[in-house]
């Protein structure tokens, strides 16, 4: 190689380095995503992780000149793990957001850290009312149980259901679901004829269902952890409660899209109130469902939508602050944010930092050989009544 060509080469490489320089100067925004990827809540974690990946594929990993990096950590839904992981992420990895949180205790465990470090905590799954009250840095993009349970209570009382037997799992979310439902259903003139709380680890529903059958209600209100819903519906049909004319109503958790087809025809006709159905008839949702199916080979459930909207909220907030990662500025940017989600129009309530969304009444029907929650009534812009009552 001649001297001349060596000089040219050197000059060329200097020029190349100069051209790349802005990329080196570009800072990184880090998001610590804490999800249950193993354990009984793993399907929640997987849905959210998928949705976050999908959104970043669709919208690129650069926002307002900053590169977005997601650090995924598995807490197996154990709050002690959540706390430790959040601490590591904030202190060692210097994350600008913590996000995810499959269950309420996990979201609560991270709350004091969010306050102390002034790091926004985006709750993408956990659903009890109190969560957003535990830190001014918490914003939620999933739902609260009160939203769907009060609505189904109102709906049932107004639609010819007089007597209801309730079957709920005996843990905090189950008791919440029961109380919110009861409150609105009895206020609307309905009567609870039987109230059964089943143990959280309950293999066989048969004795409880027999009790439901013998109390002859118009409908059974049910809330059990995702996964057990399928067992419940199968045994409900086995025992002939469907033939006895007893309907199943409840919040939509039990009829999540990723479980629905596994339940079989036993689930047909179940009426639930919920924020999302894969069958939601909007262009935004059709696009979302198609992209999700293509990428991961299954349909998205409501947890996936919580994650998809959560990462979108982070993107939008960064756009508004021009890439500034100051916690207070980010929270201010998130308050009142409004957009069209796959689930319909949603907004972050500027006062409570909780989500305001439509709640749909849906019925399980067969569409193209698959089971779907088909929406037939809409309650618009529902706030979390767990807070507005105060």
């Amino acid at each position, binding site marked *: 190689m001649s001297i001349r060509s060596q000089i040219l080469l050197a000059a060329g490489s200097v020029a190349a380095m100069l051209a790349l320089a802005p990329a080196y100067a570009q800072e990184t925004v880090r998001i610590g995503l804490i999800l249950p990827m*193993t*354990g*009984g809540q*793993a*399907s929640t974690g*997987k849905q959210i992780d998928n949705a976050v990946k999908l959104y970043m594929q669709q919208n690129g990993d650069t926002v307002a000149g900053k590169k977005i990096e997601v650090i995924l950590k598995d807490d197996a839904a154990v709050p002690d793990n959540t706390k430790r992981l959040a601490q590591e992420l904030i202190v060692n990895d210097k994350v600008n957001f913590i996000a995810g949180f499959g269950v309420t205790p996990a979201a609560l465990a991270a709350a004091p850290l969010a306050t102390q470090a002034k790091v926004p905590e985006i709750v993408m799954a956990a659903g009890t009312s109190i969560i957003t009250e535990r830190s001014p840095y918490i914003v939620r993009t999933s739902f609260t149980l009160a939203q769907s349970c009060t609505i189904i209570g109102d709906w049932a009382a107004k639609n010819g259901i007089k007597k209801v037997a309730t079957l709920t799992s*005996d843990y905090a979310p189950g008791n919440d679901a029961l109380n919110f439902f009861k409150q609105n259903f009895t206020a609307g003139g309905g009567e609870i004829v039987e109230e*059964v*709380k*089943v*143990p959280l*680890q*309950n*293999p*066989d529903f*048969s*004795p*409880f269902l*027999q*009790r439901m059958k*013998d109390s002859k209600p118009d409908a059974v209100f049910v809330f059990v952890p995702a*996964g*057990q819903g*399928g*067992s419940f519906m*199968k*045994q409900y*049909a*086995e*025992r*002939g409660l469907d033939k006895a004319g007893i309907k199943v109503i409840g919040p939509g958790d039990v009829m999540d899209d*990723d*479980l629905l087809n*596994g*339940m*079989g025809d036993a689930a047909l006709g179940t009426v639930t109130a919920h924020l999302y159905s894969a069958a939601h008839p909007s262009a935004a949702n059709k696009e979302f469902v198609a992209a999700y199916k293509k990428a991961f080979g299954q349909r998205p459930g409501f947890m996936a939508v919580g994650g998809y909207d959560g990462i979108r909220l982070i993107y939008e907030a960064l756009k508004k602050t021009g890439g500034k990662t100051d916690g207070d500025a980010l929270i201010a940017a998130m308050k009142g944010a409004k957009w069209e989600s796959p689930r319909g129009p949603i907004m972050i309530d500027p006062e409570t930092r909780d989500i305001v969304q439509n709640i749909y009444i849906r019925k399980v029907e067969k569409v193209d050989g698959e089971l779907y929650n088909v929406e037939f009534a809409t309650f618009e812009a529902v706030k979390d009544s767990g807070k507005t009552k105060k």
Partner: protein
Amino acid sequence: MTTLFTILFDGVAYGMLLFVLACGLAVTLGLMNFVNLAHGAFAMTGGYICAVLVNNSGWPFFSALPLAFVTAALVGVALERTLYRHLYTRSHLDQVLFTIGLTFMSVAAVDYIMGSSRIFIKLPAALEGQFDFFGVGIGRYRLMIIVICGLLTVALQLILAKTRFGSRLRAAVDDPRAASGLGINVPQVFAFTFAFGCGLAGLGGALSAEILGLDPYFPLKFMIYFLIVVTVGGSSSITGPFLASLLLGIGDVAGKYYVPKMGPFVIYTIMIVILIWRPNGLFGRAAAR
């Protein structure tokens, strides 16, 4: 009155299911004196094999059941030959640590391969629903469980009490040294027994998917039930665990129906009362160990 019989029927079916799931453990724990906490993992293997065959490969349910048995038994014999046999002479603590580790590995492996969602086996239409028998609601699936498990129990009892293999096994358990001196191939007898116990667990897993649900946490979730059955029943025979399963099945179902507020405590109360009364279980060897 008819409700009482419906409850009784459900309880018997639940008890029978518990028995098939747990009797393999009664054999390894009671007869072979080996603490195999990974028993549920073999049950799960059977369940998933049955689910994959029926749901994905379109096998009929009834031909998938024997395969669930065979597969779990083969996995059992493979593990027995390679891993378990080294632990027969070790302390119970070593056995517990080893088998609980195996359980966690099986949970993680199944989670990785099959996903964590709960799986249901597509049943033939003939097994769905209930029919009315003099006002008593009889679930078709539960009736099938009672029939299959009833036959198995009788066969098992006959094998242990009447056959040459049964007497060899009992001899091998009671005094391995003397038994091998008499020309009984003790390791072979143990391997076969262990495989058979695993096969039974596999069959139980396949049968239980419909009622108990099937997911990767199955071995951990139901370990406690298997152990209760074996402790309450005592471990010297098959009759003990059988009666214990029935008692616990009926007790659990009736308790949940009549006193739902007590929930799961009925089954534990029964266990505690029985163990105070007979610390070695219903049919335990009095102070043998």
